[in-house]
């Protein structure tokens, strides 16, 4: 089966600094792949190469088996992207924001579908018609997650998706991601939350200094062992 996402010996040099160095991994349909790493490990940079914002200095990134550089627009059309601390428009309410972004993506979505997505992320009804500048960070993140859901794309790229969410909302989010994967979606999330990554991911890649230094895979019907990953993460970070 063609992987939905593939980094093949991906390298990136910016301003003379090696940001990514020979990174290779794949994520198949129905799979959740988590890239773990500390600050400056190259996690978000990896996501941006899949979106065509950064061009590899070496190697390739492929979306749906096609090199991103060959058709950036086609690659983006398959991806719903949730940036870290997603900032939607403060002067618009949740409905207006979602309508605007979905229109921008070329999707026509009913108000009922928007409500269903907002229900899914548990955004209170009373908040939906308030300007988002009054939203808490968690509420803004929930709205952005709803946008990613409503995009209804085969691939989701999530950059620190649980940032700002309370513990209950994080659990609900993990369940949601698992459900999306079960429905055949490919999810690539980058995070430095070891526990969260192990809760939700089928595979975890450990990124440090732009290199993929470890890889962990869940056994059939089980979760990845958090302690093992945490030990590797701590060891690598200390090294």
């Amino acid at each position, binding site marked *: 089966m063609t992987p939905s996402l593939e980094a093949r010996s991906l390298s990136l040099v910016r301003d003379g600094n090696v940001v990514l160095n020979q990174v290779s991994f794949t994520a198949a349909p129905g799979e959740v792949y988590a890239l773990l790493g500390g600050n400056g490990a190259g996690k978000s940079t990896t996501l941006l190469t899949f979106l065509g914002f950064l061009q590899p200095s070496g190697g390739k990134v492929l979306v749906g088996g096609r090199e991103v550089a060959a058709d950036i627009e086609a690659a983006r059309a398959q991806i719903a992207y949730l*940036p870290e*601390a*997603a900032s939607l428009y403060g*002067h618009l309410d949740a409905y207006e924001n979602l309508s605007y972004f979905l229109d921008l*993506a*070329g999707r026509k979505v009913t108000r009922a579908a928007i409500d269903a997505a907002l229900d899914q992320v548990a955004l209170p009804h009373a908040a939906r018609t308030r300007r988002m500048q009054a939203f808490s960070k968690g509420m803004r993140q929930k709205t952005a997650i709803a946008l990613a859901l409503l995009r209804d794309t085969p691939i989701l790229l999530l950059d620190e998706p649980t940032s700002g969410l309370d513990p209950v909302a994080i659990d609900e989010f993990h369940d949601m991601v698992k459900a999306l994967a079960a429905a055949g979606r490919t999810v690539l999330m980058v995070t430095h939350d070891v526990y969260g990554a192990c809760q939700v991911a089928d595979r975890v890649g450990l990124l440090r200094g732009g290199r993929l230094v470890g890889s962990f895979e869940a056994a059939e019907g089980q979760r990845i062992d958090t302690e093992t990953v945490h030990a590797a993460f701590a060891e690598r970070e200390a090294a």
Partner: protein
Amino acid sequence: MSAVLREARFLLRDRGALLWIMLALLLSVAATGFGIAEVRDQRATIAELLVEDARDRANALAGQSDWGGAAYAAFHLTYAPPSEFSFAALGQRDTAPWLHRVRMLALEGQIHEADTKNADFGLIGRFDFAFLAAAVAPLLLILLLHDLRGQERVAGRHDLLVATAGKPSRLWLPRAGLRFAGLATALLLPFWAGAAIEGAGMAKVLAASALVLGALALWWLIIELVGRAQASPPVLLTALVGIWLALALLVPAVARAAIEASTPVPDGAEILMLQREAVNGAWDLPKEATMRPFLAAHPEWEPLGEVTRPFEWKWYFAFQQVGDGQAAPVAKAYREGRIARDRAAGIAAFLSPTALVERGFERLAATDTAAMIAYEDAVRAYHGELRAFYYPMLFRDPPYDPAVLSQLPGYTPAQ
């Protein structure tokens, strides 16, 4: 269409953008209103002076008993009426005279004695639509468009927006295009209304609109190119205002200084002084010294050109014309110098969209240097008609008949 509707709805919620567009609308209403008021004031002045001029001439002629006295006493109003498009660009009408009351005396001094009026307007310019479209509108466009990308970067939305749109142009083109269209509409609607009120021709209105849109499109391109730099909105704004200052103020000022230095033009006052000295000096010269050059220019009066009495009107008016003749080389240099400077300024205007738009409007409104020089030429031609009317009377000296003066040529302005 969907993108336009999406961005239109978005624009309607963007208070900052709406503020600048509303300001453009208010400024356009004000500029158009000021222009119409000024043009109407000028027309009213002309209409009033036409009545006063006829009354004054009738009074002056009533007390005369000979042809020379009539020619000496009567003033004749000449004027360049504002075109139906002048409301949009008052141009050189602020600094160059657009009416003269002339007599049969030496003409060049009468034309140039008013050259120094309205010096203040020459310095600061007037707030008309041409100024708004040429100089202020680009600033408003900069304020509307400079941070389209920058503010999204600062807010952390840029990548999400572009990734969602897929193709950047699907987002930025309609977003910038609608702001451009909003600004252009706010500027042009009052102008079109003013043109309809003034009865300006459709071709001129369309040409002027195309000029405004073309210049704004050029500024849009500049903003777009500068805006692609990964800089913060304040840095982009500073850079763009710097470019505006250079193109709108610095380039025209440097070009003007260079043109003035490279193309010297005598002062209008020089012509006035030279002509007056020639005329005043003629009183002390032998009459032959005046009549010889005059009759060389008018051989048809040679048989009647002898001056036998101490004072004769034909001699008096001959030395007026000879005075004009002596000032003619300087007047010609002044005229040709202004044309040369204007031509050079026209070429230099291609370095400044602001200057180009202002010149384009002045050309359409017939308020440019060429139109003002054409008016001076029309005054000279009319003065020639007055001389052609009076000289047969002055040289043949038929019995004075005031009824003949009803056939005096009248001034008809060019349309």
